[in-house]
């Protein structure tokens, strides 16, 4: 930290309170549902009650005659207007070279419905209640088809999409198969594991919502929507769905109450509201309720995996072989195909030097809600698999899992893994050692004995995770099938009075950008943080942006701001040189002042800003008036946050209740802008990770009905379920971006599940503990353990 920075400046690394919180806490946030447009009508969707059915006939005559009904629209109307399908923007090719089989995904179903909650028709009425009443009167004649709800048997089920035999979207591979097989052939020991990574519902506090509006004068649309990436929404709705050209479609994502990935995607609801606004000549509003969120928000995870780890005599990992079946749900959602492939298998090397890795992924359709990115997106699945098998391998070798990990850690950087990624920096031994110390790993046996005296089973488990964030170098992801580049843009507008607006393509929906981004500008320009406003989420204001996901807003979004600030500083120096009658090369900028080197002649930043606009003191033939610069930043690499989490827990064998006694998270996120916000991100992530491990799980029955359709059955972690976390940091600077940032948004959700399950398997003395490890499941396992011990 720079001690000479004036007190009015908020330096990088300061734990300042979030600027946006006053607005949120006092109820002054403005969310999509808070907006009302003149003449607005309300949309309510008729959803399929069946998992799989052919639509024989839709009769909306009675519904259209109901009070207040403006219109009832169906897939046939979409077709009449020539609207395109919703798309998946990442092309994956199968092993045989064939492109993935992308089933048709109209925003309103045409021939078939493919999951419970699928969109059949929309009723637009004067009030929401009238729309709901009329929705009941829409007569849909279905021809039922067998549901395909079980991932394990889905390839033998009724075909869901005409283009996808055996319900397979693709069969993909990554890595060197021959080298991996050779490693297994010479292995001294092989550990194998079967893993189910449970399906999760994203559960943002704010449900999805949309208002579509059409201005017949300008022939232009405006869409207010709960989006993590409004420009991408505009791009898809323009270029693929074909609602309007980009210059005639404005997308605004105002305050958004959490996303966790689920608001990246372009869904049927906002598509229909936008299109329908022109069709009915009224603004059309839809706000999802919690039941609709459970049914139709894209879910996360849902893998079945068999994997094997090959080791030599000395306990070095020499090969890793993985076969995963990934559930895609009924349709390929916007980025669904990239999640179990390039965001998953590329992380299978973890923190370990593994010379040979081969991974096969079969992506399979089922008659369930689409599955796409959810906090971590592929990386939690990879980490869970690897950290479980590593733990198991160590135990089978009779070795301390911490020492087994330490032996196999990557210790020099850069490190090229066999699965694409080149890790730029890290110190895995440092985070392991610190975590072991903070968790008092050595004292565990004594604590376990104490628990045993109290009739409890105690366990400890490690997880040494890595993730790839800062998504991502555009050319690299392009070569892997991405339909877009993953750079970010920023614009820094300095006003004549010296305050600043930062326009960013990142979107804040809980991450605190209004604070951290302002902190960056404050520190750089030497102006108070409250003189910096962050503008985001509006395609009419921000020129373009790729949005917020994959812990990219710091590493990529802020790097773009740094580039724009570089340009602002360069131009301001030129102006200052004229004002100070010095040569440009002699101007130094520090602590908010431009100084002629070696003199006491200086100007405040605000003076230079004013002069940039007054333009009295420099030749405008050489320097344009004004002080506003934009930049696009394309990352040179992914970033690689990593860390070590240790969970210690106690099982009550009488009830199966698991109590987490301590949870230690030691993370390396590179440089930190605001440690308080980072800590909050870690806490939230761990909460979701523990939720996945012990509580959460989406369940469909064999007919494809959603069993966990409300909080009566879907277990969300509550504060009382979680311990007080012990979080700490180690630090290696990220060499791949100007700020040295790695990203922190997903680490908790990635690191926590294997730490918890490794602790639980340790406590229960069996490797076979499914997620979520609910009390009833844990009790059954503890019972089996007791019987086993009694028999011995």
């Amino acid at each position: 930290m720079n001690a000479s920075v004036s007190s009015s400046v908020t330096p990088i690394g300061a734990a300042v309170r979030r600027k946006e919180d006053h607005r949120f806490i006092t109820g002054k946030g403005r969310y999509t549902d808070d907006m009302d447009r003149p003449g607005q009508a309300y949309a309510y969707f008729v959803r399929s009650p069946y998992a799989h059915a052919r639509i024989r006939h839709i009769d909306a005559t009675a519904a259209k005659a109901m009070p207040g009904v403006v219109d009832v629209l169906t897939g046939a109307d979409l077709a009449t207007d020539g609207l395109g399908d919703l798309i998946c923007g990442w092309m994956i090719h199968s092993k045989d070279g064939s492109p993935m089989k992308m089933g048709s995904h109209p925003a309103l179903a045409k021939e078939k419905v493919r999951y419970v909650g699928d969109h059949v028709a929309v009723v637009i009425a004067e009030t929401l209640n009238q729309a709901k009443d009329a929705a009941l009167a829409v007569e849909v004649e279905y021809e039922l088809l067998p549901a395909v709800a079980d991932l394990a048997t889905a390839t033998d089920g009724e075909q869901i999409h005409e283009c996808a035999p055996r319900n397979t979207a693709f069969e993909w591979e990554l890595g060197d198969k021959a080298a991996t097989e050779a490693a297994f052939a010479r292995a001294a020991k092989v550990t194998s594991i079967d893993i189910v990574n449970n399906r999760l519902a994203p559960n943002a506090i704010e449900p999805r919502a949309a208002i579509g509006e059409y201005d017949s004068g300008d022939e232009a649309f405006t869409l207010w929507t709960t989006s993590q990436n409004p420009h991408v929404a505009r791009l898809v709705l323009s270029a693929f769905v074909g609602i309007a050209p980009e210059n005639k479609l404005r997308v605004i994502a105002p305050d958004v109450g959490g996303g966790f990935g689920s608001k990246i995607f372009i869904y049927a609801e906002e598509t229909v509201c936008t299109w329908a606004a022109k069709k009915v000549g009224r603004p059309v509003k839809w706000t999802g309720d919690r039941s609709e969120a459970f049914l139709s928000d894209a879910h996360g995870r849902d893998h079945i995996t068999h994997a094997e780890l090959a080791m030599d005599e000395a306990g070095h990992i020499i090969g890793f072989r993985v076969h995963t079946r990934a559930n895609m749900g009924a349709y390929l959602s916007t980025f669904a195909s990239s999640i179990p492939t390039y965001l998953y298998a590329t992380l299978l090397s973890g923190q370990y030097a593994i010379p040979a890795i081969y991974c096969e992924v079969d992506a399979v359709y089922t008659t369930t809600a689409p599955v796409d990115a959810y906090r971590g997106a592929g990386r939690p699945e990879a980490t869970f698999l690897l950290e479980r098998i590593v733990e198991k391998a160590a135990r089978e070798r009779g070795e301390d899992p911490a020492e087994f990990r330490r032996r196999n850690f990557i210790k020099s950087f850069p490190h090229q893994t066999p699965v694409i990624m080149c890790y730029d920096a890290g110190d895995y031994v440092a985070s392991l050692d610190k975590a072991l110390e903070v968790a008092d790993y050595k004292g565990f046996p004594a604590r376990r004995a104490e628990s045993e005296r109290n009739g409890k089973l105690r366990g400890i488990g490690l997880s040494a995770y890595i993730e790839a964030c800062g998504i991502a170098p555009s050319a690299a992801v392009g070569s892997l099938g991405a339909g877009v580049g993953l750079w970010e843009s920023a614009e820094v507008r300095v006003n004549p009075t010296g305050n600043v607006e930062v326009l960013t393509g990142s979107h804040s929906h809980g991450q605190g950008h209004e604070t951290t981004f302002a902190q960056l500008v404050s520190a750089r320009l030497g102006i108070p943080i409250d003189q910096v406003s962050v503008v985001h989420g509006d395609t009419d204001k921000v020129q373009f942006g790729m949005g917020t996901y994959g812990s990219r807003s710091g590493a990529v979004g802020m790097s773009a701001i740094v580039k724009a600030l570089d340009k602002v500083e360069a131009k301001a120096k030129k102006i200052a040189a004229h004002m100070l009658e010095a040569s440009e090369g002699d101007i130094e900028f520090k602590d908010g002042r431009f100084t002629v080197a070696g003199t006491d002649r200086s100007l405040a930043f605000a003076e230079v800003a004013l002069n940039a606009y007054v333009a009295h003191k420099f030749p405008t033939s050489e320097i344009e008036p004004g002080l506003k610069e934009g930049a696009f930043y394309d990352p040179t690499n992914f970033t690689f946050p990593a860390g070590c989490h240790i969970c210690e827990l106690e099982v009550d064998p009488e009830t199966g209740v698991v109590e987490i006694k301590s949870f230690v998270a030691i993370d390396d996120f590179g440089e930190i802008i605001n440690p308080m916000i980072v800590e909050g991100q870690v806490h939230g992530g761990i909460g979701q990770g523990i939720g996945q491990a012990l509580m959460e799980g989406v369940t469909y029955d064999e007919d494809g009905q959603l069993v966990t359709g409300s909080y009566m059955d879907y277990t969300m972690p509550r504060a009382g379920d979680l311990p007080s976390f012990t979080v700490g940091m180690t630090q290696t600077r990220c060499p791949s971006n100007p700020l040295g940032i790695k990203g922190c948004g997903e680490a908790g959700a990635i690191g926590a599940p294997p730490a918890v399950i490794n602790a639980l398997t340790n406590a229960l003395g069996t490797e076979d503990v499914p997620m979520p490890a609910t009390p009833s499941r844990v009790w059954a396992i503890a019972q089996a353990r007791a019987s086993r011990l009694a028999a011995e």
Partner: protein
Amino acid sequence: MYAFDYQRPDAIAAAAAILSADPEAKALAGGQTLLPTLKQRLAQPTALVDLSRIPELSGICATTEGVSIGAMTRHADVAASELVRAAIPALADLAGMIGDVAVRNRGTIGGSLANDDPTADYPAAVLALNATVVTDRRSIGASDFFRGLFETALKEGEIITRVDFPKVEKAGYAKFRNPASRYAMAGVFVAKTAAEVRVAVTGAGQSGVFLWTEAGDILSSDFSVQAVSGLALDPSNLMSDLHGSAEYRAQLAKVMLKRALASITG
């Protein structure tokens, strides 16, 4: 929510008259089940008859036998009541364990009993304590009151006015919460009088709350944790669902019985 008429009579007779005249009208007590049901359009009553302004339905008083609790008394008030705590401390404890703070501040004992949710807490206390449910028409003994899932002895339009709890020598309640809903997966209320021990189980039974007579019989002759250590509950009539098998609920009932006893016997 569908449209409905809203009525707020200030006397029991007036409320009863509205409910008798219109079988589609529903009494509104604390609304902790009814209002979410309405919001989800799972019920469409013609009218809600709000009982909250009828003075004689609320309040707690000591009786010669024990304590009497007005039907519209909120859970939070029962939990905080010195009268209840003096007569039957376990009943005050149970009320303090229902739902969360918001539910306890709105939910009522009468509403809970009339709804007879198989995972509600109060039915276990009423049954184990052998309380009397008093309505605008009659008195109903606890053993006759509960008739199955969401079914009670109440006739159409009949309004619970109060519940009379007899004082007991000792009582205790322990429950295991459903991890998702936090309703009881197994809640066990143990009540000991000079004559007998009654054990009621909520949350676990396929037909709602029930008396665990075997446990009561054993404890009647030997009131100790040890006496029931070998006892098992037959799972054949217990619920089985996503959150646990019937066998698991049987186990939970057993553990909760032990914990309820431990809370009494120390």
